[in-house]
């Protein structure tokens, strides 16, 4: 069972990283990218393309992937999502735009790359870490370390740096933030860039374990969204914990109850959390203002 917890936590770190992207963009723009899974897929396919460039060391390739995808993320926000940023909670057009984006992306990826899984071709560790009491595949360990590291860095940037302060200012009141010279558009683009770049690295390392394929989006989206929601949506630390929590819970329920029931119970647990604490586990309840 310890093995299952460790493996669940490792995959959970990837969910957490994507969930942080949700939290980050939701704080600053009140939008979330439902095409995040496809952003990851785009990153992984770019990585496959780079695999041939043998001369570059793996970390450099990953960095290139991250930068390219970050630019794509920022551009998508500026062009397609930003026009739908409003304060109206009932206006869900951003959601539809990002869902539509994911459908377009997956369609293009399927048509151009084929639907088959293919090997990533680099940054793959083959083997198992034996900790005595438990074992973790090295690739998953690498995934966990990198995602967790990125996640902590993102959380620290958001909570501790002046950039984070500006992000928070935009999150709390974009108009007032604008008055003191904070460009909410740039902050939004930056949030999307950070989120997308991080997802690209995480998803690429993950495909080193499972293979690269166009339809990987939904496999990442639902757990990451669940992690973000139980983490409280606006809290980057909450998303980090929420994602890992979901990863572990999903793995344990699967272990105890089998794949079919376990997957369902994992999702119902998310519903239960939301019913008990609609604001999530780690965010403070907002008082109504009249």
């Amino acid at each position: 069972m310890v093995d299952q917890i460790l493996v669940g936590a490792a995959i959970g770190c990837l969910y957490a990283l994507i969930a942080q992207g949700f939290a980050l963009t939701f704080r600053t723009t009140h939008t979330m990218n439902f095409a995040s899974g496809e952003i990851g897929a785009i990153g992984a396919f770019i990585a496959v393309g780079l695999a041939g460039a043998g001369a570059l060391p793996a970390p450099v390739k990953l960095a290139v992937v991250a930068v390219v995808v970050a630019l794509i993320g920022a551009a998508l926000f500026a062009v397609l999502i930003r026009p739908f940023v409003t304060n109206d909670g009932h206006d869900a057009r951003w959601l539809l735009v990002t869902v539509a984006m994911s459908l377009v992306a997956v369609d293009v990826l399927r048509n151009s790359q084929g639907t088959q899984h293919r090997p990533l071709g680099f940054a793959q560790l083959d083997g198992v870490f034996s900790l005595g009491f438990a074992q973790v595949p090295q690739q998953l360990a690498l995934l966990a370390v990198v995602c967790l590291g990125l996640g902590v860095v993102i959380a620290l940037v958001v909570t501790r740096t002046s950039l984070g302060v500006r992000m928070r200012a935009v999150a709390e009141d974009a108009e007032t933030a604008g008055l003191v010279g904070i460009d909410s558009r740039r902050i939004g683009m930056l949030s999307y860039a950070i989120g997308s770049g991080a997802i690209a690295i995480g998803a690429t390392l993950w495909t080193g374990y499972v293979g690269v394929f166009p339809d990987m989006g939904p496999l990442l989206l639902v757990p990451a969204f669940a992690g973000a929601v139980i983490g409280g949506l606006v809290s980057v630390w909450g998303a980090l914990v929420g994602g890992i929590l979901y990863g572990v819970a999903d793995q344990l329920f699967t272990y105890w109850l089998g794949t079919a029931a376990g997957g369902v119970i994992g999702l119902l647990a998310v519903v239960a959390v939301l019913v008990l604490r609609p604001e999530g586990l780690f965010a403070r309840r907002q008082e109504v203002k009249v």
Partner: protein
Amino acid sequence: MIRTLRRVALSAAVLSLLVTAACGGSDSGNGGKSGDPLQAKIGLIGPKSGAAQFYWTELERGIELAEPEIKEKFGVTFEKVEGDDQGSPDVASRVIQTMLNQDNVDVVFGPSQSGPSLQVAETIQRTGRPWLVSIAAADEILNPEASPNWGFRTNNNNSDAIAVSGSYLWSDSDAKVGIFYGADAYGQSNHDMLLAYAKKNGKTVVHEEVIQPGATDVSSQVRKMRDAGVTSILGAVTTGADTAAITKAMDQLGYKPDRFLVTATVLAGYTDLAKPREWENLAFIEPRDLTGDSFAGITQKYEEKYGEKPTSSVAVYTTYTSALLYGQAVAAAKDAHDWKAVRQAMEDTPKLDVNGRVWEKPFGAADHDLYEDDPSSWFVIGFDPEGKVRTIGSAGS
């Protein structure tokens, strides 16, 4: 101002797209009733778009590859009507409707996947049109009660595959048999068949585990399989990637069952994703000798024509077979548009020769499956360390 202009331009574009969509393409065919009796109007339906596009590609190419031979041997030519079912049953139902009643096709090839096939099976059957099922493997697609039966299958069905697999899995009398199966149509069907086989033969399936397609990690399922003491496993999952996930977990846990039997779906991408040590004791059974001349010859034709390896060489071969079967029947019936005669001719096929492999009287009124479940006619196939298929032997021995 620019905003308004942009909006107006976009609106115009959207509207024109809708209008062209609404007005365009009312080219309903007038049926194949007229013209050359040996030119068949064939309907091809499969997932041209969607998550399983390669099944469409192999369907289309399998027929394309067979066309020269059909023309040369039987003088029959094809006029193709293509339909994209998008892998979705309701879309398949609508596409089939157009094919059967508007385009008036002489024969339907496909759908490639079981779900859409099951949705349209009864419609084709009751409408009465020759129907070639060359890729989808679910047994229920052909209703055994139907008479006359319009459907012909040139792939093996799941129950035949399981009957042969069963005899292989239990060939060691005290083998403890377990199954990994995918949470999809293919996995469920194989699972049900294995259980039915076990019941019929007085055996028990010791342990079963579901594999979620695309799951990152299946070590918990593999661990439980090991802990149940299973020595002989059937793996019925849809993609090579899922098989790779299983063998990876087995490798990590150091679990080596005596037999790990999978299905031909493993051909799609497995060896790209797995390591040679993980496939050492992996095998799958096939009613086709994948290294034999008949099969390898068609795969080679494919590579020459399209410059790439087929994703599913089996689908190409079975579709090639179906096209030959149909072409031969059209020649025998002398009129592609006489559907009843063509159907009868297929049922009465005296001999079918697919690139050297010969079937004598493969069908009967109650038997519309090309392959039989006699283990001695099946092969056990594995991979060599380079990842090339190798025939280990006959499933009968």
